[in-house]
């Protein structure tokens, strides 16, 4: 099963809708609650990063018998130093964004912690692609 989502940039009113929609689908399919939690957390963090930093983007999800593979693609500013961005507490979010409770510098660390496989490709001025895989068994 393949799913596709469009994510608007800077629109905090609908931010997280793609993650919420995938969660509903997984629930209907009877996927285990602890697995849905892992997917929801890692995808929500990645989706919010797209909204906050990258003017939105597209998300493709492929559901197979043994795993959920999520690819998030944006054409935002890119990440100059991925290793630094992976550090807990490191954030480039603005003051306004932080006041909403984002920008704790835990987005990428949470993706790493709650997914089984995480890959981040980024090129400054071109964009970022995040691949998240969670195994179902």
């Amino acid at each position, binding site marked *: 099963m393949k799913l596709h989502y469009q994510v608007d940039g800077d629109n*905090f*009113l609908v*931010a*997280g*809708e793609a*993650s*919420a929609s995938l*969660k509903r689908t997984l629930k209907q399919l009877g996927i285990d*609650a602890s697995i849905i*939690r892992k997917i*929801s*957390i890692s995808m*929500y*963090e990645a989706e*919010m990063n797209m909204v906050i930093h990258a003017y939105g983007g597209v998300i493709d999800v492929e559901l197979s018998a043994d795993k959920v593979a999520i690819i998030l693609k944006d054409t935002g500013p890119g990440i100059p130093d991925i290793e630094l961005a992976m550090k807990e507490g490191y954030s480039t979010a603005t003051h306004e964004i932080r006041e*909403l*409770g*984002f920008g*704790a*510098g*835990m*987005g990428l660390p*949470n993706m790493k*912690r*709650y997914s089984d496989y995480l890959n981040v490709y980024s090129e400054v001025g071109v964009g970022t692609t995040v691949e998240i895989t969670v195994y179902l068994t």
Partner: protein
Amino acid sequence: MTIKELIRSAEFEIVAGEKGMDNEVEGGYVGDLLSFVMAHAKEKDVWVTIQGHINSVAVASLLGLSAIILSEGVAADSEMIKKADEEGIPILRTKLSSFDVVCKVSGVIRT
């Protein structure tokens, strides 16, 4: 214990999400940084926070939280109320500090 029972035993005002009044409460989490809440709050927790905006509802809904308690007299904005009504996530409000809310809630749900 349900949210309805929790409200009966503490001074919380319900401002949205009445559809979820029968949600079960098993524990709680306090925090205003959404990534920490995402990482640590558990299904059926009540969440005590000062984040009175729509993104809190998205977090609560993704995690299956039983309610959001807005402390320190913080108000829910209109988008939050609308979304919470749609999702059936109760939003409770109080003038108490986050610390005092936790004391109250833990006194009720642990007895």
